[in-house]
């Protein structure tokens, strides 16, 4: 965990040790406790669980279909996200920063809420089909098809693409484009030869993330598509639930091999790419969106309509569900229900959930950002070790959330006997630590490329002038990559707010529940009202938080 030059100093060692300890306790050990079932039987090493799965044609089909839908989901997420990145990076318009902040919102919405919104928006009698019918067009049969699953995956992931790529776009050095233009390149040629190579790592990062997320998708698949469209994760969930742990472990191992393999390949590419890039001293100027009307701006208007249908539509539908009574009339009684729940002795109180979510998220950011920076430093150079460490550090992405949750449950939640004592990690601080472990890879993925593309001579000069390694990091490197750190922090906050699997395991019926947990718990019988009301509160609180974070935290060099 040393810096890139010289012997490690104490602050690096301490930060490295704490990071490693957290990862071992809250990630590697719990996950290993599940995966070990795949390679050990009665204490003897064995390959039979893995071979059983590999010998079963059913699983080949299952993995094949899972990869197929993830590919489609990734392509659609890119198709919907890249134009958004372009608009955010290249155009100025009122509310641009707010829109940029709100790109994190879909990320934190519980899947049940998204399913409700999608069923309402895209269903047989939804607004989309009513609009089509009004225009004399045939209705779209989207529900229970692969199409709606892919669309729902894009709802979650296209904003992620837009966010990551827009950040990269804003750090493209305008002077490189100007140089190309002055040498006679057409705007198109300059874009292709100068801008595209600088955006490629960001596009690939986001595509890789989307592929991995949608490869491991499960509640959306079952809610909107059904068992006919089952993914690997659907099967894995069932194996865990019915305690067929060997088969679950075998599936999880195969799943992790695929996703970790992708991560490794990507890291190789990213580091190589980043070496040629640089931190933009001068980002390109933004054009005004509402100026003249031309072909580009018309296309953007068309894009805005698509965004309204795909992103705003389901969210508005969900909000409407929270104010619609059983008989279809408007009613605020579900919000009155939430107010009344503030005083209950038994059960989940909305204000406690809001407070917990915000406190945990702040804590998760405080832990995940240093962790992410430490791992970024350790993996910034392009060596085999750095790539292996970097890949392992990405484990929270690559391992099924179900496996992590189950592993946490049977290790740290239950407690582990060490020398006759039962050591147990539960409660609020454990949730914060688990959120930080889930979030720090996002910090790494935003900070590492920026760090590795920095000119080493800057650090070397400061060292030559007598600065300690730590001092050089704090005074030279971190300020230069501040925008990336801020972006990573915003991600960490969002991950913490939206995290569900580990939280609900660690809460264990106690008082540390969060907003997504509350949404799940309010899914009362025969009415979605209380859950959608709580979901709307979650939407409001997180939306406001994201806007505040980015206004206060700023985007460093991006926003002047």
């Amino acid at each position, binding site marked *: 965990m040393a810096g890139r030059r010289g012997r490690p100093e104490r602050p690096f060692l301490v930060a490295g040790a*704490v990071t490693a300890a*957290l990862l071992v*306790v809250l990630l590697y050990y719990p996950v290993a406790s599940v995966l070990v079932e795949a390679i050990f039987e009665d204490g003897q090493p064995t390959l039979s669980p893995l071979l059983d799965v590999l010998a079963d044609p*059913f699983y080949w089909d*299952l993995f094949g279909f899972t990869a197929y839908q993830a590919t489609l989901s990734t392509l659609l997420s890119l198709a919907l996200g890249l134009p958004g990145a372009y608009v955010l990076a290249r155009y100025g318009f009122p509310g641009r920063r707010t829109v940029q902040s709100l790109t994190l919102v879909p990320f934190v919405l519980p899947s*049940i809420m998204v*399913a*409700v919104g999608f*069923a*309402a928006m895209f*269903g*047989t009698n939804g607004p989309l089909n009513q609009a089509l019918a009004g225009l004399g067009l045939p209705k779209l049969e989207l529900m*229970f098809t692969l199409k709606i699953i892919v669309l729902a995956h894009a709802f979650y992931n296209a904003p992620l693409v837009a966010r990551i790529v827009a950040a990269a776009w804003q750090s493209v050095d305008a002077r490189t484009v100007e140089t190309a233009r002055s040498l006679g390149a057409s705007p198109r040629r300059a874009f292709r030869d100068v801008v595209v190579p600088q955006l490629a790592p960001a596009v690939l990062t986001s595509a890789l993330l989307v592929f991995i997320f949608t490869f491991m998708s499960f*509640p959306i698949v*079952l*809610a909107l598509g*059904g*068992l*006919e469209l*089952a993914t690997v994760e659907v*099967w894995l*969930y*069932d194996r865990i*639930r*019915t*305690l067929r742990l060997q088969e679950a472990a075998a599936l999880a191992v195969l799943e992790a091999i695929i996703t970790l393999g992708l991560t490794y390949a990507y890291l190789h590419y990213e580091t190589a790419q980043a070496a040629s890039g640089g931190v933009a001293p001068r980002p390109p100027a933004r054009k005004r969106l509402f100026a003249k009307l031309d072909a580009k701006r018309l296309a953007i208007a068309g894009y805005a309509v698509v965004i309204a249908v795909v992103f705003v539509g389901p969210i508005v539908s969900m909000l409407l569900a929270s104010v619609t009574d*059983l008989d279809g009339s408007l009613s605020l009684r579900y919000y009155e229900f939430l107010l009344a729940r503030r005083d*209950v*002795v*038994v*059960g989940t109180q909305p204000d406690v959930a809001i407070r917990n979510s915000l406190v945990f998220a702040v804590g998760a950011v405080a832990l995940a950002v240093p962790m992410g920076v430490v791992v970024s430093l350790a993996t910034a150079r392009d060596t085999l070790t750095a790539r292996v460490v970097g890949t392992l550090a990405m484990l929270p992405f690559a391992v099924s959330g179900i496996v992590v949750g189950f592993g946490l*449950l*049977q290790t*740290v939640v*239950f*407690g582990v*006997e*060490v020398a006759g*004592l*039962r*050591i*147990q*990690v*539960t*409660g*609020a*601080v454990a949730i914060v*630590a688990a959120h930080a472990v889930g979030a720090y890879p996002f910090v790494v993925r935003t900070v590492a490329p920026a760090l590795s593309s920095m000119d080493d001579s800057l650090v070397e000069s400061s060292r030559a002038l007598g600065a300690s390694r730590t001092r050089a990091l704090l005074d030279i490197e971190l300020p230069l990559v501040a925008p990336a750190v801020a972006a990573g922090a915003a991600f960490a906050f969002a991950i913490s707010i939206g995290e569900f699997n580990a939280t609900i*395991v660690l809460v*264990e*019926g*106690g008082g540390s529940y969060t907003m997504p947990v509350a949404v799940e*718990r309010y*899914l*009362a*019988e*025969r009415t*979605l*009202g*209380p859950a959608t009301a709580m979901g709307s509160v979650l939407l409001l609180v997180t939306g406001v938080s994201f806007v505040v974070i980015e206004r206060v935290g700023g985007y460093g060099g991006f926003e002047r």
Partner: protein
Amino acid sequence: MKRRTFIAGVGAGVTATAGCLGYQQEPGDGVVTVATYDSFVDGEEPVGPWLKERFEAQRDDDVTIEFQVPEAGVNQYIQRAKQDAPIEADLYVGLNVDELIRIDDELDSALFDSLSGQLERSDRVLDELRFDPDGRAVPYDTGYISLVYDEEEVEPETFEDLTAERNRGDLIVQNAQQSDPGRAFLLWTIHEFGADGYLDYWQDLQDNDVRVLGSWDDAYNAYLEEEAPMVVSYSTDQVYYGDTPRHQVGFLNDQGYANPEGMARFADADDPDATVDLMEFMLTPEAQGEIAQRNVQFPAVDDAELDEEFSQFAHVPPEPVTFSYDELAGNLDGWVEDWARQVAQ
């Protein structure tokens, strides 16, 4: 009683220690900790808070009820027992027969007590609801799985109606792997067509475009959005919606699949006496009425105090059917697995 002293985590580092300190809730005697599911304690008018208030009020000692809602349900306790981890709960509320089978498959030691003789009111429980041959799980309510349908569009009366061409794409069911009503509906078809014939029937259902969604919420929400005119649900549906055209209850072949829910005392309960007292209380006519109405299920006794309205809108099938513990043990997993593979293919 096997209760261990908790020691703050040393090896797990500073955070772990602090995490432990946040969770020092040593349950002493006089607390009945009830493990149950979400809707028992949360949502609109849940029965949990009512039970706590009434039970505590009618006693002259300081016994209190606390609730736990483990996400993994009874699995949480199976795993704990397997790993010799302490069990913090005294009573489990919401046990199904299939969970009981899983407990018996997975564990050699007893997770729950057999209460024969200790629970006076257990005689009051209707015979047809008893599902535990060993007398550990005591039924406290039951649901009947049925169809809910829109009478302006369909009129399902038999299993054959569901595979008829005129009802193509009209039925939504739940995933039997993870949903109670979904599994009950699957078992109902096995009850009707036999272990050798149910997959053929399901092939016909699939050919007729049946939709197998995830949970009851997923399926019912799709039904409310009018994606299909029939959904598998409970025969108490009209308690919420009244006798409307969109909420008719259909008993296929005049049957409904009974799915009784039980409560069971953990073998190492901290306060076994108070736990039995609570179980007795839950079987009184007053509590049975409240449990049924707030849980929107049927009571487990025949003298529950029910509102007129509930009795009017909750329908009992002419012929309740169900599988016994012995019929399911050893078969259930294979039936569900074969079915799931066929659907997912």
